[in-house]
């Protein structure tokens, strides 16, 4: 039985209690961050089963590495960084660069929007999908995208500009092309 956190005036916690506390902390982190990261992974890969696997691997790596205590936003960016690295690993192995989506369409309220976005995603490169999703769905600024992708802010600016132009060409011609 190990004695952990021997803080004066407090009863030392047992190893089991420490593990339970860690699990509880992890659960609250997971509840707060898993949905946007899953959305990002599905949005970039277009495959739900791949996204589920990558999501689990993201949190698994986070737990195994045990990074030093970070703030909420920093932890969120760190998780996006791990997820992005996992996506890159897949594409480096040439596992599945193409965007596929086997989702059911009958539940879609706005069918046109869904079809436009799917067609655009298929036409975009993986990195362009990543940048567009982080910038416009997650609302990250250039510095935050840089932290989440490992790119420099100036590169993000340039790549995002190109990706946005390409996406606008694909998404907006039928609508209000700027």
């Amino acid at each position: 039985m190990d004695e952990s956190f021997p803080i004066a005036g407090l009863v030392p916690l047992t190893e089991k209690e420490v593990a339970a506390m860690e699990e509880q902390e992890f659960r609250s982190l997971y509840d707060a961050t898993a949905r946007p990261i899953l959305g990002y992974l599905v949005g970039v890969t277009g495959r739900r089963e791949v996204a589920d696997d990558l999501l689990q691997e993201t949190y698994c790596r986070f737990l195994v590495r045990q990074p030093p205590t970070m703030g909420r936003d920093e932890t969120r960016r760190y998780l996006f960084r791990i997820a992005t690295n996992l996506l890159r690993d897949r594409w480096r192995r040439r596992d599945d660069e193409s965007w596929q989506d086997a989702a059911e369409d009958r539940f879609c309220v706005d069918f046109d929007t869904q079809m436009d976005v799917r067609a655009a995603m298929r036409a975009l490169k993986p990195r362009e999908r990543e940048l567009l999703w982080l910038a416009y769905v997650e609302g990250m600024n250039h510095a935050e995208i840089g932290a989440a992708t490992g790119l420099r802010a100036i590169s993000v600016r340039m790549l995002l500009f190109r990706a946005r132009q390409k996406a606008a060409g694909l998404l907006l011609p039928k609508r209000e092309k700027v």
Partner: protein
Amino acid sequence: MNRRWCERESDAVQALRAGLLSPELSSHVLSCAICAEAQAVAQVMLRAASLRSAEHEPPPFDLAWRRAEARRKEIALKRATRPLIFMRVLSVVYAMVSVAWFLHYLWRAGFVELLSNWTVLQGEATCFAAAIAVLSIVIGAGYLLRDSRRTGEGVPST
């Protein structure tokens, strides 16, 4: 469009996400082609993402937790068996050096001459000891080989 970015682009997207577009920002978006394009793209992507968000229910947290636990155990096991792997490599190197030395010795001494003069092997007790040593080495090596094949990682399963 000569400019490639606008410093207010993020503000324009954030305002769209929050649904709070101030009159000042609104007039900027009307006059800035970059912010207008960013907002238009963001609007379509956000709409599609929100429509799909109901389908994005993450798997239970304990799946990731259990996977991490298993990975931690695997790493701890690899760390614990590192000295064994080191000893195994050392023993292979030692065996190879011994065989090389022995062959070199035979070659220099002259094999036939050596055998005719070597009376050590004539002793019954020496032959018995040599047989036991060889048998032990063969059994030990066989066990390690079988064990590493079973674990599939080149490390003993214990």
